[in-house]
């Protein structure tokens, strides 16, 4: 086909594109990912027994805020990396600061605790399953995000895949707080962090071959 003919075809009836189309897609994806994770918690894991009481406590919300902020960093990075000339430096820095702050608080809590409690704080009662549950709850959201991202214009597939994973992992870990009764900063700082980063790593691996266009 001649290039002029192609241009005629492309420009024949251009659909209007609303401003902010990219962030809007990801807001929708965040909601859908949260719903998918919520459905899995309700149907499969169940909510924690003391949920109503826990929701009046500070730790429940600290935990939720931490993972939600990690997800927000992923959202911000995604919103940039979905564009061919997008840079995610500030979003990544934001995520790293959130992570460092919370892990630092956890480390402080661990340092002031006496020796016999330290192990219990780190391992809690569910360290074995925490990582796998967060990853599993995040899977539907991660895959949906990658499918949407592929139709945008990411030029750095590994980094964009990681952002997608941090985004879906942050959302899933926040919802997972409805099931998980762990309430130490040390536990959350280790296992929730690993869950979100692990989802990010999975996103990077899948993104490397999936985000080509």
């Amino acid at each position, binding site marked *: 086909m001649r*290039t002029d003919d192609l241009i005629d075809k492309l420009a024949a009836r251009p659909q209007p594109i609303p401003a902010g189309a990219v962030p809007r897609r990801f807001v929708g994806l965040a909601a859908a990912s949260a719903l998918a994770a919520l459905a899995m918690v309700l149907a499969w894991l169940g909510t924690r027994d003391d949920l109503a009481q826990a929701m009046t406590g500070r730790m429940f919300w600290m935990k939720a805020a931490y993972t939600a902020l990690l997800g927000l960093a992923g959202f911000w990075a995604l919103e940039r990396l979905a*564009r*061919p*000339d997008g840079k995610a430096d500030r979003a990544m820095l934001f995520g790293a600061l959130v992570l460092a702050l919370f892990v630092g608080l956890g480390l402080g809590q661990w340092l002031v605790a006496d020796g016999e409690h330290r192990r219990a704080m780190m391992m809690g009662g569910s360290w074995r399953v925490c990582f796998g549950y967060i990853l599993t709850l995040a899977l539907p959201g991660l895959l949906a995000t990658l499918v949407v991202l592929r139709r945008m214009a990411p030029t750095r597939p590994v980094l964009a895949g990681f952002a997608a994973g941090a985004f879906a992992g942050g959302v899933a870990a926040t919802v997972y707080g409805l099931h998980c009764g762990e309430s130490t900063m040390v536990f959350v700082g280790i296992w929730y962090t690993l869950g979100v980063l692990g989802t990010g790593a999975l996103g990077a691996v899948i993104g490397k071959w999936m985000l080509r266009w």
Partner: protein
Amino acid sequence: MTETEAVLKGLMLLGLDGDAQAYRLLLSQLGGRLRVYFERRMRDAPGDVEDLVQETLIAVHTRRATYDRAQPFTPWAFALARYKLIDHWRRRKVRTTVPIDDYVDVLAAYTPEPGSAMDLDRALGTLPERQRDLVRDVKLEGLSLAEAGGRAGVSEGAAKVALHRALKALGERMRGRADG
């Protein structure tokens, strides 16, 4: 350049709002600039320039929702072009990493004139022993590069490089003799 940017961006914004005329003008203006961009970077394959111009225009069209209205337009469009160019090189590289077989074709197609030319065995005889063995193992006996490398006591990668050099030298020698 900044004037061009202002014009292109203005057209893009109109196009995003559904103005077909402005959008067509944008695509044709951009097409000309893309052609120059690709021509400069693809002197080795001028036949592919127009394909890349079209691929990039299609990407501009189908992915135009990823353009951030608050940002300049030109870097966005040329980031798409750059991605298409790298993708093109990546695909071409797959083809250019099999030059060994090209040489074999050249050698196979070459029929020396009787009397003046050397046959393959005599040409082989002029190569250093290691290269000669490698060519014989891989090209005449049909061993894999890994097996031939194993015989010569070198890695598969080293065998590939050595074979490439040997075939090149062989080709030159045979051509040289035939000419002379």
